[in-house]
């Protein structure tokens, strides 16, 4: 069973302060290989902040973040720079899409490959055969990835000219290009219509099946959360208030109160 496997990502007692504001408070969270875990909570609960702590954009005030690679290597992520975290095998998407607008769709994915490639300035100037081979390889791989995400017909378009749903898909494709073992998705369905959301669910299910990937996802769309996730964590005011299977969470009084309390305002 998945529950028995060693965790791929382990967040323990992570706290993040912004001046006087404690945005995340002593959060514990694990994601195991091949598992999809949802992180939900009202607006301003600290979900995105937790993602930013994991990915090195913020350095948490306290706590420990640990990643175990498929080969059993254990890496402490706290204090690493964002690019080093990505190299360790964590990739993410952003709540408000952050594509490279004036680069082509293909280039966006090629940027994702950056940390897995080696060629530098001099090999680029001299156009060494190793560099050309690597370049041809990355173009091919990136194009395949675009095909898988249904973006192949947009290859040479600027990312900014893509329709909204396609931009969200491109962000996931770009994240996958870094060969992550854990994928963090921040509200991937935000702003999507029902059909686009359904396509997204299919896509995430395929990712789970083919890559053996662990996914941690923030989402407000409860139908999607219930459909996709094996386990759910609930945050409110920076603290974890519940954890469990989708069934347990939908019955949890604390969760109901957090959500209803928000609606009353």
């Amino acid at each position: 069973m998945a529950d028995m496997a060693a965790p791929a990502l382990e967040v323990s007692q992570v706290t993040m302060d912004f001046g006087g504001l404690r945005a995340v408070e002593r959060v514990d969270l694990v994601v195991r290989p091949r598992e999809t875990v949802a992180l939900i909570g009202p607006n301003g609960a600290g979900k995105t902040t937790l993602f930013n702590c994991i990915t090195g954009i913020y350095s948490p005030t306290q706590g420990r973040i640990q990643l175990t690679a498929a080969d059993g290597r254990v890496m402490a992520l706290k204090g690493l720079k964002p690019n080093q975290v990505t190299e360790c095998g964590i990739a993410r998407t952003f709540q408000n899409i952050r594509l490279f607008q004036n680069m082509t769709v293909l280039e966006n994915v090629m940027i994702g490959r950056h940390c897995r490639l080696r060629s530098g300035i001099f090999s680029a100037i001299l156009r060494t055969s190793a560099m050309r081979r690597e370049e041809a390889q990355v173009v091919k791989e990136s194009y395949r990835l675009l095909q898988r995400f249904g973006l192949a017909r947009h290859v040479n378009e600027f990312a900014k000219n893509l329709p909204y749903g396609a931009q969200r898909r491109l962000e996931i494709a770009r994240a996958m290009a870094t060969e992550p073992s854990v994928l963090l998705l921040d509200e991937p369905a935000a702003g999507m219509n029902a059909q686009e959301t359904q396509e997204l669910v299919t896509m995430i299910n395929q990712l789970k099946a083919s890559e053996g990937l662990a996914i941690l996802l923030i989402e407000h769309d409860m139908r999607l959360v219930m459909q996709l996730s094996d386990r759910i964590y609930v945050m409110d005011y920076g603290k974890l208030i519940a954890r469990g299977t989708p069934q347990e969470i939908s019955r949890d009084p604390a969760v109901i109160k957090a959500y209803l309390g928000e609606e009353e305002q």
Partner: protein
Amino acid sequence: MINIGEIKKSLLSALWFMLLTFPIMVIRVNTIDHTIQWRWERLVWVGGAVFILSFAWRYLLRRRQASARQTVMDIQTRGLVSHLLQRPREIFQTPSVRRPAMGLALVFLLALPLIFSWNRTILMTNVLIYVVLGLGLNIVVGLAGLLNLGYAAFFAVGAYSYALLNHHFGLGFWTVLPIGAGLGALFGILLALPVLRLRGDYLAIVTLGFGEIIRLMLENWNDFSFGPSGIDNIAPPGLFGLSLTLQQTHTFIYYLMIALTTLTVVVVRRLENSRVGRAWVALREDEIACQAMGIDKTKAKLSAFALGSTWAGTAGVVFAAKQKFINPYSFTIWESIMILCIVVLGGMGSIPGVMIGGLIMVLLPELLKEYADYRWLLFGAILVLMMVFRPGGIISDVRKAYAFEAEEEEPHHG
């Protein structure tokens, strides 16, 4: 067509300007016979000119918005001819047009010293020096998106390294050329290190300060740089020990600059579509996403600054050899701004754009010599107009398109 609201607004701007310029344009104090001269006719001039300019401005803006709307609306109904006229770039990019055009341009450039006078050749050498400078700054500003207002400092580093090494140690041009390039890169890194955390306006201010520090140092550190009087008698580049006349030397430097420009274009082209170049563009587009995709921001910034200033160092060495005399006044803030104008005017990130920008920025003042006093006014006006009507520059940045054989459509999603 004419809109009352626009006339009103233009009148208002005219009044404003009349009020603002009143003290300097109208009143003239004669300090000798203690009288005040009122030049009212000037007020009329200011008012009239501002009204016409402002009105033309609003009219152009309106036309631009209308045409933008139109392209969305009736792109299909437009005739083939006008459609083709809309896309000169695509025409130029077809190999059957592009290759002969480039060949012709190259032949023209090579034959230039034979056709035109000596002065024209020197002028073209200047154009090429500025094109190289523009291409270098383009790496930093256009590709990596790091605003650098102190670029002339690196130009100075190159020029002074040749002048000083030649003066003190008698080192030749060919020896110092790589040294100048290396020193340019080194100073690029020296500037980049403290500004790694800065962005946008802050970066602009610090780089501007850096440029001024270098200039002030050259101006005041007499023992090192010979101060404002500069360095004279710099040796021209050698050509297998042949002794060349002055004119031949200038022709030689011209061809040298053609070679250097070609080299720069090739190198920058190779870089911009490489792993490193893509990282620069990603850094420009979104710093956070760029890091999250595994790019080391520090490395990307350092390499952009280093490579950008390498070209300034190289161009500086050639400049010193060409001028035979340099002093700090060739490397002021205006020089940096001029190079930045080349990049912005031509098109940030675009190699042909920068080449055209260099051509315009160097030749235009030459053509309008009588109006030399208004040079910066003209440049300023051009830049403002560009920002409004063509923010991407004359030739906006295009990214490389990759070709794929038509493979079967994607497995899922329709």
